[in-house]
């Protein structure tokens, strides 16, 4: 497109404004013509912006300074404090058609173009009114700048910017300022519907037809103040920035009664005008400089729900040791903190349990002096209510800060979410953007008063159960036919266990057989389990089928009937996570929450991890030992554990099995080796077909000594080279 020619002489009638001075008109005209001609000559040399940026632009101060603003967070940075003018620039607009900024140049009383190196270049325009203007924007549906000022002598004007070569720019009044008399301070064009929108000091939302000059009040958006900057994004959301406190509000124009929701904390100013490319998303997909939370989206986590988010551009304030960013939130259960190796939720430590009616101890580690605001969803409503704010504008120092939270007596027992936000902004809410800092979301458990929580092997750690599934035949002892990580946590009250949680993940399936997996609580009658309180998740999805297998006898929880139903081989892999080059993520995790009707005395509670065992999936063939699929009757237990009452005892002592039921010895070879092992860590089991004794040379002396030597034979450091599947975290 062709803009105004750079070397033409400005017609005299366009300089009518010069008459307001006391100088002779002729002399002033000549002078301005020279100035404009000189300035205009620079236009051709200055570059436009390279693209339609997501960043918004904000111009402030009586000597114009230009800022870049991330509307999603309110983070802003000074782009230039020298635009080449000593006065204001207002009516800022980003031109989608040529990628230049435009604004009203108070020094020259005309529209100016602002180049990518932030230089104001006034444009000569015919028929300009004799005044400065502070409301303006460029349409998306046409390459025209519209500017407005109320009052009979002014009104709404239009300047077509894509005039043919040799044709001067000219201002055209659409409507006078008495007919269109609206108390607004900025307007912005919608990206698709050709209307401009503005919000008045009282909160009235105007929809302006710039072709006719007509305006319609769409209602009141519910906020008041001087909204000196208005912007659109490509999705049609209108953003307005309030001068007095810098708060940015978002308005969904598709709503029948649009209202302003707080969106971010931006810069405050007495003189404020903003613009952005309305065709750009609010956050580009390749942006990784915004930190989001990861609680379920009902708490306000993703951008679409105006989730809590912090700009990392400053990089000075964060919780813990690290913070990372993303273009939008990944919410539970798909949170990036758990899905990848980078967990930046490392700044808040829950020292104590959260007991109803009791104080709880936390440690918050801050990278710098800052303010902490925090919420805990005590009533488990799925959102953070005002009365659930546990820290408000709490000043924290660099380093560890010991904190106390009073758990209200009305808090609901069970799992819930907590949100911690740190920033230089003292008071923030549970949602919305902030220009610095970090948000960290945590899943916590609220329990009865005076509980003792015991974790095995420790909170956040795993043990491993590893099976050879060829029983009663001796297999290859690679101990990876089924590998399940486990951890447990039981809650006791006054010496009685009232609740139990078992978590697990299927680490490997290194055999073709179809195997199920279950856990028995030895000595705990199934009838003592509270059926309505039993909860079971697979891959964080609540299951509707009870895992409790029986109604009497030792409680048995069937986690899965067939491991192959939940995992898939990698491309080019025969099995799941047992071969080099087949290092997929863990594909199956589970969690059981169990409550005991009358509690179980701690003294008689079985030792974790209880009795995890493998069973044959019904309907699937096994080895030649079995003429029919053995199904649920085939079990393989850890050393020292007994079969359940569903075990088919006729299978004992077939083939290589040398069980001795009379002495409670089951699932042992003639030498006494078992078909299952429990390892006290997240074990790196042997690669496919590698004997555990070859993978871990210290296994044999450990076993032969009866566990007296080389007790940590199973750690990675004790493994032979290239013999194990790397599995430690």
């Amino acid at each position, binding site marked *: 497109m062709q803009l105004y020619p750079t070397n033409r002489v400005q017609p005299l009638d366009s300089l009518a404004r010069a008459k307001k001075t006391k100088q002779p008109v002729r002399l002033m005209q000549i002078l301005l013509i020279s100035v404009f001609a000189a300035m205009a000559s620079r236009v051709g040399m200055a570059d436009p912006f390279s693209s339609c940026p997501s960043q918004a632009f904000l111009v402030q101060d009586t000597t114009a300074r230009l800022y870049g603003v991330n509307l999603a967070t309110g983070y802003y940075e000074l782009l230039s404090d020298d635009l080449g003018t000593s006065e204001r620039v207002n009516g800022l607009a980003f031109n989608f058609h040529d990628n230049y900024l435009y604004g009203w140049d108070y020094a020259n009383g005309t529209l100016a173009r602002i180049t990518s190196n932030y230089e104001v270049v006034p444009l000569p325009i015919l028929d300009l009114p004799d005044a400065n203007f502070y409301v303006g924007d460029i349409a998306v549906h046409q390459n025209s700048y519209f500017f407005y000022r109320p009052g009979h002598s002014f009104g709404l004007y239009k300047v077509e910017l894509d005039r043919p070569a040799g044709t001067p720019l000219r201002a055209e009044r659409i409507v006078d300022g008495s007919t269109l008399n609206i108390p607004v301070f900025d307007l912005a064009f919608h990206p698709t519907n050709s209307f401009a929108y503005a919000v008045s000091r009282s909160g009235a939302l105007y929809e302006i037809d710039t072709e006719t000059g007509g305006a319609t009040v769409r209602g009141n958006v519910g906020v008041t103040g001087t909204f000196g900057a208005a912007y659109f994004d490509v999705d049609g959301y209108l953003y307005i920035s309030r001068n007095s406190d810098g708060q940015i509000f978002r308005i969904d124009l598709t709503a029948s009664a649009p209202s302003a929701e707080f969106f971010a904390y931006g810069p405050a100013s007495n003189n404020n005008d903003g613009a952005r490319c309305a065709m750009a998303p609010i956050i580009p997909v390749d942006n990784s400089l915004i930190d989001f939370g990861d609680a379920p989206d009902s708490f306000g986590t993703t951008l679409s729900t105006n989730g809590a988010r912090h700009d990392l551009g400053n990089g000075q304030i964060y919780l813990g040791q690290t913070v990372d960013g993303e273009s939008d939130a990944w919410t539970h259960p798909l949170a990036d903190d758990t899905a990848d190796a980078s967990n930046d939720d490392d700044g808040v430590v829950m020292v104590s349990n959260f007991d109803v009616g009791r104080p709880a101890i936390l440690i918050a580690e801050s990278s710098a002096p800052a303010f902490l605001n925090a919420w805990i969803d005590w009533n488990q409503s799925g959102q953070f209510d005002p009365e659930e704010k546990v820290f408000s504008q709490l000043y924290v120092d660099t380093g560890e800060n010991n904190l106390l939270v009073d758990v209200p007596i009305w808090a609901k027992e069970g799992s819930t979410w907590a949100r911690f936000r740190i920033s230089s902004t003292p008071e923030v809410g549970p949602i919305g953007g902030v220009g610095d800092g970090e948000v960290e979301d945590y899943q916590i458990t609220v329990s009865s008063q005076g509980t003792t929580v015991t974790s095995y092997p420790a*909170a956040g750690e795993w043990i491993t159960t590893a099976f050879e599934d060829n029983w009663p035949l001796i297999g290859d002892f690679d101990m990876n036919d089924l590998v399940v990580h486990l951890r447990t946590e039981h809650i006791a009250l006054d010496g009685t266990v009232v609740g139990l949680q078992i978590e697990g993940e299927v680490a490997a399936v290194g055999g073709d057989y179809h195997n199920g997996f279950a856990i028995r609580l030895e000595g705990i009658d199934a009838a003592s389990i509270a059926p309505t309180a039993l909860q079971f998740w697979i891959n964080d999805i609540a299951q509707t089928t009870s895992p409790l297998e029986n109604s009497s006898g030792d409680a048995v929880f069937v986690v899965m009937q067939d491991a192959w139903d939940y995992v898939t081989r990698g491309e080019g892999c025969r099995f799941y996570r047992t071969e080099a080059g087949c290092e997929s993520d863990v594909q199956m995790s589970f969690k059981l929450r169990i409550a005991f009707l009358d509690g179980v005395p701690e003294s008689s509670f079985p030792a974790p991890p209880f009795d995890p065992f493998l069973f044959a999936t019904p309907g699937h063939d096994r080895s030649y030992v079995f003429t029919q699929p053995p199904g649920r009757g085939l079990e393989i237990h*850890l050393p020292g554990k007994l079969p359940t009452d569903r075990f088919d005892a006729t299978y004992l002592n077939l083939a290589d099995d040398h069980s001795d039921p009379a002495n409670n010895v089951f699932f042992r070879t003639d030498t006494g080796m078992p078909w299952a092992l429990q390892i006290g860590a997240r074990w790196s089991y042997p690669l496919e077909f590698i004997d*555990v004794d070859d993978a871990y040379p210290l296994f044999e002396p450990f076993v032969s000594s009866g566990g007296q*030597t080389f*007790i940590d034979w199973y750690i990675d450091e004790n493994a032979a080279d290239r013999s194990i599947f790397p599995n430690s975290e």
Partner: protein
Amino acid sequence: MRLLLTIMLVALSGCGGTSTGTSDDSPTTATPSPVPEHDGAASIRPPAGFEFATSQTLPIEIEVAASEPSGLYLTVCRATDHLTSDYRRCLMKTRMDDTQLTRSIEVPNDVDRLVVALWRMQPTQRVAEHVWNRERDGLVTFRVRH
């Protein structure tokens, strides 16, 4: 307030404690030495009754002075690299409503250190932290007197 903080072990007698047991018969994590050739796991002969356990029981006894205000909070956690308590990896958390607490906890064989910490609620501060060191303290009862 006088804080009497003691780990009752010979190795720490300078801290005011005395040992009530020894660790001489504890299993070791000694440096690997050459092992004889054999024919894989199938040929290994474990002693009768051996159950292949890779964790061991550690008894813990905590005693709080009667002068200490009630409501201390106790944690038993894995140790950080700096031998402080890693509260994200705790084995036990409980409020101390009595002056004594006795527990047994299972410790995996590769875990060499645990940290027992006592917290006071008001003001919120950690008032004691004791490190259990497998090599030094063994699996005899780990006693903390505060």
